[in-house]
């Protein structure tokens, strides 16, 4: 068994966190520590166990439980490497939390929108996702969950530095707000780099969602806050929403401009991406992501009539390694992944049937 049945089930929910338009998703994560206990990195097994116990007990109280619909819990060490990879792809686990460590417990709401990690970098790491730009909605949910937990747990708090976290850079609100944004047109116009660099002045940072040789495969970027002190959570979130919305509008303006001024080139790029994905028999992730990015650009601009944004969101998840393994329910080599990924695309885009595989398989 390479996937835990619970995790398989969550993965089957479809791309619940990917929305429409350039702003694809909003992620919120909140770090908290229980007062009087050492932080996980230095704590003894005894302390870690107590923390896990306290955290789980708090989550089983009725008021907390009701905020985590049909939640389930799994010890981190019982998750396979593929499980953890799948959770990262689904935005339910941070990549820094994929290492096995003592007394880590993964808690997840069954709808795949909320997860909690006990004994990660901090005692509790609460994480929520929603499609589109959804700070307000997410923060009200997150704040309710945190308040409910705070009724049963006493969090480490300092009147000046706010909530204390293992990394002092996070002290204060302990809140990380992240937007996933798709910026192909700004990339084509050559202005993307400059705009994203300017974010630093606003205390924000942009990084590639799929970094490939320092570049963002699929033109997907994560924009998140670097400041946690001196600003209310709502103010930060609304300020970020305003900035991200401004970037998104600029992206849309650039798209419209491309479509009117360079229609032929635009159609050519869309058609080539479509042709590639529809007829490929072997395709690596980064190439697939780049072609998918152009497909989304075309779909959003109405170039493709029968390729919906939902199709796109599903393909974006399906073409990633752990999701492919989950789909086939077996461990796959990179070569096999390339083959099955291509099959996914051909099927979705009504391309040719599978090739006759009696010939020699190329060696990897």
């Amino acid at each position, binding site marked *: 068994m390479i996937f835990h049945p619970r995790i398989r089930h969550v993965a089957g929910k479809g791309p619940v966190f990917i929305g429409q338009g350039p702003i694809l998703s909003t992620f919120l994560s909140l770090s908290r520590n229980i007062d*009087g206990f*050492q932080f996980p990195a230095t704590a003894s097994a005894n302390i870690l166990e107590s923390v896990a116990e306290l955290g789980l007990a708090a989550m089983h109280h009725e008021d907390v439980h009701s905020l985590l619909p049909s939640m389930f819990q799994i010890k981190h060490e019982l998750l396979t490497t593929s499980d953890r990879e799948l959770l990262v792809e689904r935005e339910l686990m941070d990549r820094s939390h994929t290492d096995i460590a003592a007394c880590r417990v993964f808690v997840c709401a069954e709808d795949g929108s909320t997860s909690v990690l006990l004994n990660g970098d901090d005692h509790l790491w609460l994480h929520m996702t929603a499609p589109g730009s959804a700070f307000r909605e997410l923060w009200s949910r997150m704040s309710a969950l945190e308040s409910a937990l705070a009724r049963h747990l006493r969090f480490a708090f300092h*009147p*000046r*530095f*706010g909530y204390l976290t*293992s990394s002092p850079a996070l002290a204060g609100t302990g809140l990380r707000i992240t937007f996933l944004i798709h910026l192909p047109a700004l990339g*084509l116009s050559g202005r993307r780099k400059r705009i994203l660099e300017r974010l630093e002045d606003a205390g924000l940072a942009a990084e590639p969602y799929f970094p490939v040789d320092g570049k963002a495969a699929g033109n997907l970027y994560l924009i998140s806050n670097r400041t946690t002190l001196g*600003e209310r959570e709502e103010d930060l979130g609304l300020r970020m929403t305003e900035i991200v919305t401004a970037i998104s509008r600029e992206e849309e303006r650039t798209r419209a401009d491309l479509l009117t001024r360079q229609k032929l080139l635009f159609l050519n790029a869309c058609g080539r991406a479509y042709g590639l994905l529809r007829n490929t028999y072997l395709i690596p992730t980064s190439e697939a992501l780049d072609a998918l990015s152009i497909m989304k650009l075309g779909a959003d601009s109405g170039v493709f009539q029968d390729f919906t944004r939902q199709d796109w969101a599903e393909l974006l998840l399906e073409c990633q390694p752990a999701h492919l393994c989950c789909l086939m329910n077996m461990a796959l080599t990179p070569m096999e992944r390339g083959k099955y990924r291509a099959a996914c695309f051909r099927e979705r885009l009504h391309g040719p049937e599978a090739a006759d595989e009696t010939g020699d398989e190329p060696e990897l």
Partner: protein
Amino acid sequence: MMLCQICKANPATIHIQEIVNGEANTLHICAECAKKRNPAEGNAANSHFHEMLERLTQAIANSADLKLAELFEQNKTQEEAPPDLQCNVCGTSWQAYKKNGKVGCAACYEQFGQRIVEDIMLNQHGSVHCGKMPPETVEQWQDPTVSERINLRRELERLRKGLDESVRREEFEQAAELRDKIASIEAELKSAELIPDESAPETPPKKPRARGGRRKSS
């Protein structure tokens, strides 16, 4: 500096990428040639969007200056870190913290004193937490001895931002008023902090080791 590929005279400030026959061509040109080529490209750099980003980032830039000044003041009074400094609750050493950027427990924030304050303040929006608070802290705030100074610090933060704003708007009368208010609060805070810890009534925290000694900060 790269020169414009069309006029070969002005510096290239606009970079246009086009895909021709599947090959990406990048064109580096100046704003003037871009305008001649297509009016929309030349204007793009000065669009409304940039003004907006400017406005949004302005506030941060100002508060960053303020923070720098604060840091500078703190540095003056700060003593060198002893080589063997370590948290006596969890045993994390200052060196270990500096190496991996993580403290071992809540008490480290107190144990490392002024030195860690600098790291916490680095690139932050302000110097005092003003977000959500735990319920027991809110209760504690009902106790005037605890809440007063915290409230004063927050008021100070608010006034300093207001001062910045009114200086920028050149409303000097209001700025002078704010400046006096700030000075009086600063004096009040200073006198309050001269009171030795033991004479200030401490609210009994349930787990004192993680919370004790907070008066050292600020």
